[in-house]
């Protein structure tokens, strides 16, 4: 694999039921590439948490996954409300999700911490009222 592989997805913000489809597809693609189960699981969990966040908080967005021989890069971009306090958002248990979201099994304040936990680096570029781009790397 000399050239990087790039997978692009549009994440539908109106449909909680379909949230996670992009992560499911990435998991399948990475399996086909023969990567280790541990790497595949880390990438797919981190991406899944991000995808759910985009649906819950930002009315959807885009997801790009770039696979090289050295790393897997996951870029999640939305035009949602932005994150006013990133440090606070990174704390386990902190959440701005509504009770209706919690009743669906999310909004426990573990999304961003889990994304950090399962990746080697996580960068958050956010501006209130403009949107958020999260870039994660998992090294191979």
């Amino acid at each position, binding site marked *: 694999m000399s050239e990087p592989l790039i997978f692009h997805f549009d994440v539908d913000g109106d449909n909680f*039921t379909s949230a996670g489809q992009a992560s499911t597809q990435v998991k399948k693609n990475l399996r086909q590439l023969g990567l280790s189960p541990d790497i595949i*699981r880390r990438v797919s969990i981190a991406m899944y948490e991000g995808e*759910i966040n985009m649906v819950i908080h930002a009315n959807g967005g885009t997801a790009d996954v770039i696979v090289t021989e050295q790393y897997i890069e996951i870029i999640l971009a939305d035009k949602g409300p932005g994150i006013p306090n990133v440090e606070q958002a990174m704390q386990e248990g902190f959440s701005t999700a509504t009770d209706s979201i919690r009743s669906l*099994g999310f909004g426990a304040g*573990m999304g961003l911490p*889990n994304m950090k936990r399962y990746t080697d680096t996580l960068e958050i570029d956010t501006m209130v009222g403009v949107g958020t781009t999260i870039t994660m790397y998992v090294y191979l």
Partner: protein
Amino acid sequence: MKISEIRDLLGAEVLCCEEYLDRDVYSACGSDMMSDVLMYVKDQAVLLTGLTNPQVIRTAEMMDMKCIVFVRSKKPTEAMIEMAADDDIVMMASDMRMYDACGTLYVNGLIGTAVHV
């Protein structure tokens, strides 16, 4: 523990993938919050939950889980059963409450997921 033993201990009804009841599982996680479930990585695990929406299946899929048990008499939709079947995840439903179901599996040797990344 074989998945068939989980079925017997919890008096559960198998909803799909009956052909995989002979598989072994080594750990379990009980929660209605999927992000809590996603915190723990452990191979060949069982998820016990009272939540019934498609994200339960996706969470189990991301975690490479082998079996989902719905507690408190909760029943998934046909679409959810199809999703689980596509992923080769054994799905079952029990009338037991979460606390009792987890306790029953624990005392019979299926420990929790104490280690996380």
